[in-house]
């Protein structure tokens, strides 16, 4: 018996037709770190997230090398919000990364993962008085976002008799649009300096660091150079005014991953700067800032996306293929925006996991939700797919496993492939019980019979 392929017919449209045109993949993607995709789906179901421990470690080590070969004191802090599965966090912690958290829930996760309190950077605008007390108790680094928080913390430290190690988050003009001025204190209008003065006036607050985070998916290394320069200038000004040395400059994250942004003409992996490019821009700014070598602050980095995106894959299957009223082909997958939040801004690369012929079809890829917004790719050229075929979505490690929605269907299994090719379930799929155990139904509503 011959292998079957759907009969198709395509019209040649001058201007868009070229059989080598928009095809990105020439070969199926049949295995991840040596483990067959089919075996993963047979064992863990479809859809299913897969994480490569090897890729995480390789990516981290490459980033650490890029920075530490250029700058003497470098410390990464794993950005929990990007992916806070414990297994993922622990790989980063084993590699030497601290924790960067933006909520008490993330803070607790870090503590439970065994991260020492003084190695936790507590960021974000949302810290309650209780949160601040705990952070203070654990000697964590508190990154102050606004004056209300500064005053609140000031009251707390006064009562506790402890000294708080703090940093301020600073926003600034780095030529990046839009300017992220909603977080922290502004550099240009001197609000940041005002915050510095207030902190320096408090005997029980130690201004330990200066922090900025200029944006996300940043393609310009120049903006980082500018940001690092401005923070270094502020550190020098503090030194000049108060004789106080800033221990670290936290340049945040926002480094781009190889995903392709919607509307980008070129592939993301072709246009993003390398980790070495970012490192070069930032370290040359700090080294050339005029801060004496012996007094150079540590460089803290909170990269998330660029460290984890490549290590994550989403495996899925074709539920149906159909034709839309305008003649376009549509493919319905068993995963949608509920699991792939990032498909709102990325054109994710999707590769079939089984052999295919040279024929391709232009299609729209939908998710399984009964919701019009559930579109994974508005237009993609893929080989002919049949119901039940498997596909692999690439670079999904960042944000999807934290921003996923348990909407209409539950979250699927997440597995990690270790360095030896062993497969571990790191988060079990949710079931109806996962939801129901949180719910409490009043007694009079327990039955469907009318009261």
């Amino acid at each position, binding site marked *: 018996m011959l292998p079957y392929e759907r009969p198709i017919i395509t019209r040649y449209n001058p201007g868009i037709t070229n059989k080598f*045109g*928009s095809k990105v993949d020439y070969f199926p993607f049949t295995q991840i770190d040596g483990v067959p995709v089919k075996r993963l789906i047979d064992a863990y179901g479809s859809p299913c997230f897969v994480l490569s421990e090897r890729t995480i470690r390789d990516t981290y080590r490459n980033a650490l090398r890029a920075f530490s070969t250029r700058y003497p004191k470098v410390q990464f802090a794993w950005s929990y919000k990007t992916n806070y599965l414990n297994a993922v966090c622990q790989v980063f912690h084993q590699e030497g990364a601290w924790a960067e958290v933006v909520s008490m829930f993330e803070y607790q996760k870090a503590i439970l993962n065994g991260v020492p309190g003084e190695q936790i950077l507590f960021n974000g605008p949302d810290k309650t008085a209780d949160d601040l007390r705990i952070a203070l108790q654990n000697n964590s680094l508190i990154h102050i976002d606004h004056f209300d928080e500064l005053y609140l913390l000031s009251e707390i430290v006064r009562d506790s008799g402890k000294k708080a190690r703090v940093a301020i988050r600073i926003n600034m003009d780095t030529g990046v649009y839009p300017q992220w001025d909603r977080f922290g204190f502004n550099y240009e209008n001197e609000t940041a300096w005002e915050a510095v003065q207030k902190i320096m006036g408090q005997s029980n607050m130690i201004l330990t660091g200066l922090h900025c985070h200029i944006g996300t998916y940043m393609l310009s290394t120049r903006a980082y150079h500018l940001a690092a320069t401005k923070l270094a200038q502020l550190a020098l000004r503090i030194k000049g005014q108060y004789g106080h040395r800033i221990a670290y400059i936290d340049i945040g994250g926002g480094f781009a991953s190889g995903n392709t942004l919607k509307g980008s003409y*070129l592939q993301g992996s072709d246009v993003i700067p390398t980790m070495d490019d970012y490192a070069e821009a930032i370290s040359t700014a700090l080294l050339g800032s005029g801060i004496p070598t012996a007094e150079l602050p540590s460089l803290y980095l909170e990269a998330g996306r660029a460290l984890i995106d490549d290590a994550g894959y989403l495996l899925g299957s074709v539920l149906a293929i159909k034709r839309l009223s305008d003649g376009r082909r549509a493919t319905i997958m068993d995963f949608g925006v509920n699991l792939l939040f990032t498909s709102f801004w990325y054109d994710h690369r999707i590769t079939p996991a089984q052999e295919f012929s040279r024929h391709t079809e232009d299609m729209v890829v939908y998710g399984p939700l009964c919701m019009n917004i559930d579109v994974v790719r508005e237009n993609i050229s893929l080989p002919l797919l049949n119901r039940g075929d498997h596909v692999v979505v690439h670079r999904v490690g960042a944000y999807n496993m934290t921003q996923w929605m348990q909407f209409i269907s539950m979250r699927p299994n997440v597995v990690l492939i270790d360095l030896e090719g062993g497969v571990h379930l790191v988060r079990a799929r949710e079931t109806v019980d996962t939801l129901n155990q949180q719910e409490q139904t009043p007694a009079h509503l327990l039955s469907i019979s009318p009261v």
Partner: protein
Amino acid sequence: MKTLNIALTGLNNIDSPGPGIPVARALRSGGLDPLRIIGLAYDNLEPGLYMHELIDRSYQIPYPSAGSEALFNRLKAIHEIESIDVVIPNFDAELHNFMRISDRLRTELGIQSFLPDHHSFEMRQKTALADWGEKLGIKVPATRTAFSWSEARQIASEWGYPLMVKGKYYDAYMAYDADQAAAYFYKLSAKWGLPVLLQQIVKGSEVNVTALGDGSGACIGAVPMRKMFITDKGKAWAGITLHDDRLLEIARTAVAGSCWRGGCELEFIKTPDDHYYLIEMNPRFPAWVYLAVGSGQNHPEALVRLALGEAVEPMTHYEIGKMFIRYSYDQIVDLKEYEHINTHGWL
């Protein structure tokens, strides 16, 4: 003697022509014999595909949007059949990918190219041109970037109309009032993304230079031309070589200041009081590059020799007052040929 296999793109010799066919013609009229020219095409209707007297064989290649990896894989497959010695990309939009894979092409496949490095490529981008010009002492019309229409309107009200509204990568429109400017702003931002550029109008005649840099700052050749007539698409219909030492000097400054490697086209406006404003520096040969050949400087041939590592003496002489007059020509093509490129991916 071993046949030299040269692959090139830009076979779209249509009313707004790509430079591929003029480059092929230049190579044919040079001293590179025996020579085989391999066309690389994006669209099956690119006329060069069917010009067998100039192009020996053509292949389809993936669109730039498919990424550099797809391009490399396709070139590798073509190379296995054709043993390409040199590749000459001729489109702006594909250059980024070609530059990205040029090292791999050379080391893994032995395919030479002669392209600018990333740094020089970036410094002449529209958004950076004004800064770059200032550094070199080359006048560039006042240019500002706008990320929103309100920002653009603000700039426009400072400058007044008319002004040029330009896309980040391509396209430019003259706007005579705020309504037009707004329409162009939205059109360009939708097509090419933000920012949109606003440029002050400089009045004068359009003069262009086609040039070749060796990558170390030397200008191997440069020929200035004035457009004598322009089509409704803004393309030259006819042009004439000029005697203009100052213009050549500015062109050499630009080539030296960017350490330009490869062919380029410099577009200037010469004002009535003899000031030269650089409007654009295109990172490839212009479609009128054959005028340089016709007036005594074969830039494409020199580029191939440079790519192959040969020493090439700078060319300074060219005939002044040589003209080009472009014409279009209806090729008669058998359906079999169209079928062949469509179904086999080569012709």
